[in-house]
């Protein structure tokens, strides 16, 4: 049976804290990839959202902060990329003093992965894009 877009779904085995709706096969496939990536040393959480669904696995109590940052970076990078003619953005990486955030957009699906600064983000980009 097709699931309603705003009904709660069964969480994947490894603890996404919020899961609302289910969207398309790309979304499901990304959710599964992110569950694997979440197990990597140094990855502290992720958020996956599409137009109708979202999976959030971010550390408490800063979850709202992380989610806001992920959305802001995603929006801002679009504005910057447009001005500088970066037509087909693959990834956006923001490094802070303590952690870094990797944002990837695949169609309507937007991913934000938070990790330690020592974590090999290039490997994660490859894992998601391949």
């Amino acid at each position, binding site marked *: 049976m097709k699931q309603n877009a705003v009904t709660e779904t069964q969480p994947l085995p490894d603890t996404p804290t919020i899961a609302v709706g289910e969207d398309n096969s790309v979304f499901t496939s990304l959710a599964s990839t992110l569950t694997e990536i979440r197990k990597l040393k140094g990855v502290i959480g992720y958020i996956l959202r599409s137009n109708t669904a979202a999976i959030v696995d971010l550390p408490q109590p800063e979850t709202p902060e992380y989610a806001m940052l992920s959305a802001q970076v995603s929006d801002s*990078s679009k504005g*910057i990329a447009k001005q500088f003619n*970066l037509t087909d*953005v693959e990834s956006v990486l923001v*490094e802070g003093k303590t952690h870094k955030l990797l944002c990837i957009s695949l169609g309507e699906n937007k991913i934000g992965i938070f990790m330690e600064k020592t974590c*090999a983000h290039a490997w994660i980009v490859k894992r998601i894009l391949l």
Partner: protein
Amino acid sequence: MTEELRSVLGEFRVLSPDITTAVVFGSDGEAIAATEGTTPEQTQALITNLNSITHAQCIGGIQNLTIQDVNTQLTVNAVDETYFAVVSSRGGQQKVVKSLTEVVAPTIIRLALGKLVVEPTKTEFTTEPAEVKAEPEVLAEVAPEEPAFESITQPEEPLEPLEPPLPKAPTTQFMVEKISGILVPPDTVRIDSEVIDKWRELYGNRQFTTVHIETLEGKTLTCKFKPIKDIKANEKGMIQVPERIIQILGSGRGKLVVVKPVVEEA
């Protein structure tokens, strides 16, 4: 000063044709300098969009932002209270681009904006005889130790995320000073002991006996190192390098190199 900074940014494009645009702007939103061809709209969009990221405190602020598309990348680096943005090709000589944007540019920006004070280094000429006047027999005993150079190949991205990661190797920038003499091992550089102590603090009981040296042109080499004890004030920031290593690196006296310890895996 802005005009001078703009000229320098223009030179970056000459040094590395992979760089197409460079912009320096303040954290207060003020555009400081940009390469020719960069429109005010582009600079303003960059500043506005960066300023709209207001929740970066949870990752410790924005130190660096990189946007990559298939062929091009835009990198924004924080340099004190300013930001330095560069648009460059993802192909080509990434080492040159990195050296220019991560080493040369921050230094120049700090100098241009008066954030960096450089102590003039004095070259002391001495008429005293050399330390050791060795007889030919002594030379034979001391000199021919086989240098232990290793050429560096750029490793693939580490794919073992389940191992505990080491702290990122701290890179330190030094100015090259040539050392020579019979008792100078040709495969060993000398570095300020304070810098070595900081590395030891960082790595605890992890051993490191060699350092990785990289020139601004991207040439790299790994070699042994020794501390310089009793360093003089005007030798701070210097790395003493034997002639042989200088030749291999294609470097020279007064040139800048970036040095980091090579830490052995447990």
